[in-house]
């Protein structure tokens, strides 16, 4: 009896899952396994793939390759995550105060969510321009000098991070705002009666209650930051220089130099990195959530 029921349940379950899982197998899992397989081959798309065992991985980790630099660059872009969360939280908090004219502010802050990455990258490409860009104009009016935001390897990561925070904080603002709206006012009223000021209320009530939101935004932020590609490609016209991160290298090796095997191996290392960081973040936030 039990097995019959389990079988029936299995049939029903997988029937519901069918449309989703067919797509999953065909367009996600299949290609992923394919790319994992290919990472053990040397394949330039034209000739037959040649099995080279772990040579791609060895090459990646060898002394001459710049994989560690690209790795470091990818890690640098993680700075975007706390920045965009902090900005978003601040803006959402202000919006939550429901000042007069909030409606207009809301429109301004939420719109970048729907913007396509490419026009935004084009616009920012000009803003960060060395000669005539707005940012340099602003700096010069403060008495500073010009910085080649997109060409100087020392500064390019900062320039691109600035743009990424600008665009990414909009989505985080929407989420934080909705979360803040969900916190009942009574909690604050009770705290005020107890004599707590705004600052204490923020750290004692707001922040702990936002833990699930921090968690969600943190994970999606990390995943997004490690895969930051379009802005870099568009703004530097394909020559990333100091912003050359792992995913850019995956793209470059795959589509410019047609070394699909090596690119797949790199992609898998990147995936491991994302996975590990997400798992760490998960563990850390879980702990503090339990504590709260």
């Amino acid at each position, binding site marked *: 009896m039990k097995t019959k029921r389990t079988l029936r349940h299995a049939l029903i379950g997988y029937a519901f899952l069918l449309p989703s899982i067919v797509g999953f197998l065909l367009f996600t899992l299949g290609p992923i396994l394919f790319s994992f397989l290919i990472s053990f081959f040397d394949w330039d798309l034209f000739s037959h793939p040649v099995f080279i065992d*772990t040579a791609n991985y060895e090459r990646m980790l060898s002394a001459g390759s710049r994989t560690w630099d690209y790795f470091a660059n990818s890690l640098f872009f993680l700075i975007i995550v706390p920045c965009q969360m902090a900005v978003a939280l601040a803006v959402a908090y202000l919006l939550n105060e429901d000042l007069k004219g909030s409606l207009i502010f809301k429109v301004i802050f939420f719109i970048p969510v729907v913007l396509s990455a490419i026009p935004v990258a084009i616009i920012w490409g000009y803003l960060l321009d060395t*000669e005539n860009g707005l940012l340099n104009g602003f700096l010069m009016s403060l008495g500073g000098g010009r910085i080649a935001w997109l060409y100087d390897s020392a500064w390019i990561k900062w320039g691109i991070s600035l743009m990424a925070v600008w665009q990414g904080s909009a989505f985080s603002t929407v989420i934080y705002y909705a979360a803040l709206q969900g916190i009942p006012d009574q909690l604050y009223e009770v705290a005020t009666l107890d004599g707590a000021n705004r600052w204490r209320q923020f750290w004692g009530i707001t922040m702990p209650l936002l833990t699930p939101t921090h968690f969600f935004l943190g994970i999606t932020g990390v995943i997004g930051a490690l895969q930051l590609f379009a802005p870099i490609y568009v703004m530097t016209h394909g020559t990333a220089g100091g912003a050359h991160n792992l995913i850019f290298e995956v793209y470059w090796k795959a*589509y410019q130099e047609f070394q699909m095997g090596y690119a797949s191996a790199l992609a898998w290392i990147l995936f491991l990195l994302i996975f590990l960081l997400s798992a760490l973040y998960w563990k850390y936030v879980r702990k503090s959530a339990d504590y709260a």
Partner: protein
Amino acid sequence: MAGERTSRTMFIVFGLLFLATAVLFLTLSSETSSQFLVFSTWGTATEVESFQKLIEHYNTTRRPKHRVKLSHGEQNQYTERLLVQAAARSLPDVIHLDRKDLPLFVRKGIIHDLTPILERDSVFSLEGFLPALLPGCQDHGRYYAIPHNFSTMVLYFNKDHFDAEGIPYPDSTWTWDTLLRAAGRLTKTDPHGKIVRYGCLMNIVLTTMIAQNGGRVLNEACDSAVIASPESEGAVQWVVDLSDRHRTSWSILAQNLQWDDMFAGGRLSMIANGRWAAAWYMRSMASGSVDVAPLPRGRYRKGAAVSHMMAISAQSSKQDEAWEFLKFLVSEEGQRMVNRDGANIPALRSVVYSDEFLRHHTTPTMNNRVFLDELPVSVPWPFELGPFVTHYTLQSQLDLALRRIHLGQATTHQSLMIMQENINAAIRAQRHVPAPRPFVGSVLFIVCGVTLALAPLVIRFIRRRRHPDAP
């Protein structure tokens, strides 16, 4: 009750939308490419429109067995897309090609050897084409493409600025020194010391200047980078000095997209650019302000040319029909149909030496002959790629090298050495023939990975067996 009604309405609406979209989705017509002769090209909207008209004309007047259809690729990804299509065996039949890609495509077996077809076709002849364009269509002596059009780099200059300074217009006697002196006089600064008018911009033809000084980016066989030579360094240094030392130009650290706008706005007096800019400059500037001159000469006289050609895919099953269409494309009639915007120069002598080009409606007052005179002494622009490297590899290495130099992070010599090393590494990787290896590391790899992934599940399973009552 109201909730139920809304949910039911919602359900019905969704259901109808779903049905409608499903019907739409299944009936969307998408004609399979086997019914057509596919012709692929890049191009602006105007160029695409011209090609569409040409194709319509061809389809209606020649009534071929397979009608011709256009496939448009975005210019920056054109080569990469063709390579992916080649790998997936979905190549178009007739391919519009840039000269720089020919050796790579021949090496990968993408395009068809046209020499036997040329020998068989007794009517069609290559004699009508400008002879300077023919070597670019060949690889090891065999023809793989037919010339279509080309563009040469010239020196555009603002006549009003020259008149105001009393400097004679540039001509074929100009050398690098003459240019530098003129640029110095043409550069203007405002009372605060900020430059309001730059004298010249030569960044676009940097690789041509290298050739003019006797240097090369890649060697003759295009299998090794030789850019770290004294001749190349001399040329690069000269261009770098224009901005960094003499302050008559910008470095590449300024967005290169601004240069045209600056020239049209009178904030730049001379710019070395290709034919594609001519029509826009004429339109955007006061009439008669702009004219062209040959590039100044260095140690040698060298020009720069981009040339485009038509090829037939090696995978095509309709090669005879493709050849017929190709002949139409490069014929006088076909050339006239796509030459309306004047962005390129037709490859046929009969068209190019007539008023059709010499008095082209987009540049009537320009000395258009200059474009033609540059061709016989031209080197490929921007690079002669050969079969091993892609354009982006060389371009990005060059950009990185120039950035290092302008930012003072390396001397010209060091920077070009690094560039040479990187390009050689890329070429080595391309030429590397992989040697198969037996399954050793990968098996260990997979076994370890699977063990690590399954370990938590196994442990949990064992724990549950030991303590069946624990939660």
